[in-house]
């Protein structure tokens, strides 16, 4: 097999990606920019400024920024701790964070309902300890908790990946040159983990921004996110043009995230699985 022939090996894959990724994505553009009769309109996209839609978008953005920030704050020290444990090649790390995925995503989220409910497990424990009860179910706080719970691994793994690649002696060198623990962290470790942090932020922010399941289960029907609006247009409302138009708005945010990754994680360090 010569080189040209070997390139042919990628053809089935390229055809598949054209057929099932590129064409379907272009259909969203077509639907989103036309009305039911098929003529061009910007109304679907602009309907994002309708009161209910805009409110849902703003709430989605706020909740996903908050949960991304919490994930980052939780994941960075965690990844540092895991690195300091010097486990062999991180197989155990992946093990710990991938394993929950074998318990169904919806059931896992649903379990938080049992934990958080008014008469749920956490409140039973709190009452037993004579502590004030926690009433966050069906509020944005519960949704944030669900997001953090589900997406934390997406933040931990890329950060851990880049931290793993930092040579111990690079950190020792900073200490050797007089940096204390905090200075070593801010001047050496964090700057060197930027690719992983950016990947992690994107991997958490995008699904959090677009979820409709977590808000549905943990927010009752009281909290409406942009994901819920779009889902309803496709399943209940049956206005695919409107749903596609709103999806296009969402995709702007996704594209911004992708651009960030491309800028800060050139070698795809954080993306490796």
């Amino acid at each position, binding site marked *: 097999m010569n080189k040209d022939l*070997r390139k042919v090996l990628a053809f089935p*894959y390229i055809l598949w990606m054209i057929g099932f*990724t590129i064409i379907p994505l272009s259909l969203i553009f077509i639907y989103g920019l036309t009305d039911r009769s098929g003529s061009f309109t910007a109304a679907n996209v602009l309907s994002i400024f309708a009161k209910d839609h805009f409110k849902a978008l703003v709430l989605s953005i706020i909740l996903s920024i908050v949960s991304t920030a919490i994930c980052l704050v939780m994941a960075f020290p965690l990844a540092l701790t895991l690195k300091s444990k010097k486990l062999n090649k991180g197989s155990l790390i992946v093990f710990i964070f991938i394993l929950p995925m074998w318990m169904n995503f919806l059931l896992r989220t*649903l379990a938080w309902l049992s934990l958080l*409910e008014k008469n749920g497990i956490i409140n039973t424990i709190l009452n037993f300890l004579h502590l004030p009860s926690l009433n966050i179910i069906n509020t944005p706080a519960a949704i944030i908790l669900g997001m953090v719970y589900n997406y934390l691994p997406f933040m931990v793994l890329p950060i851990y990946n880049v931290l793993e690649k930092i040579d111990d002696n690079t950190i020792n060198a900073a200490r050797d040159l007089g940096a204390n623990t905090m200075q070593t962290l801010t001047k050496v470790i964090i700057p060197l983990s930027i690719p992983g942090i950016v990947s992690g932020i994107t991997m958490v922010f995008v699904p959090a921004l*677009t979820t409709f399941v977590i808000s549905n289960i943990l927010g009752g029907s009281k909290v409406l996110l942009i994901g819920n609006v779009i889902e309803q247009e496709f399943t209940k409302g049956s206005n695919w043009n409107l749903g596609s138009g709103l999806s296009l708005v969402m995709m702007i945010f996704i594209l911004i995230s992708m651009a960030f990754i491309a800028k800060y994680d050139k070698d795809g360090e954080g*993306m490796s699985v």
Partner: protein
Amino acid sequence: MIYSKIRKVLGDFYLVFILIFLYAPIATLMILSFNASKSRNRWGGFTFDWYGELFKSATIMSAFRNTLVIAFLSALIATIIGTVAALGINNMRKVPKTVVMAVNNIPMLNADIVTGISLMLGFIAFGISLGFKTILISHITFNIPYVILSVMPKLKQTERVTYEAALDLGATPVTAFFKVVFPDIFPGVISGFLLAFTMSLDDFIITHFTKGAGINTISTLVYSEVRRGIKPSLYALSTIIFATVLILLIVSNIAQNKIKKK
């Protein structure tokens, strides 16, 4: 040094806290699967009933079967297409390679809801009726990128030198590939397959949009029952799946360690 000891203890505490956070819901579900009461927050005594009922429920069993078959087939097909494609991509020039890898990242970085909707619109535009095969195609689509990302790094590390050495020693290109290159990238292929299998098993959103009526996976079955109240048999099923995977992983880890020690 006293500070490093304090830091170590704090780190251990934090690790335990995260583990509790990650596994508390899972433990909850496992406990609920033995709860005689149907209520999610009242303990009605210990029972195995839900496990018995699980195997009698045609709905659950068919959803379970669909989930497994789709996860296995989609992971297998994605692994084949992805591994072959990785070989091709590896031989491309820089520019086409960058373009292909950028497209490869789309299903991974894109929101599941957008991927799901776009595939649904695509199937309808092509006149493919929604059902088992559309779920399968969708899962293959989002699985291929994971396989490629697992195989490509291994391929970069090994291929050139060993492959050329094999040719130098008189192997034909095909023999050289299967005797030398493939064993080298095999760990990547396997981890790609396992990742794809896991992703498929855990997917809800894309399945939700591409399944059509009359077919369910465990995820979609759970979703349809969220409002009506979940049958505890589903907890039982999840517990069985989780326990099986946990045992398999532990056994394979022990086996690997033994091989390493030898």
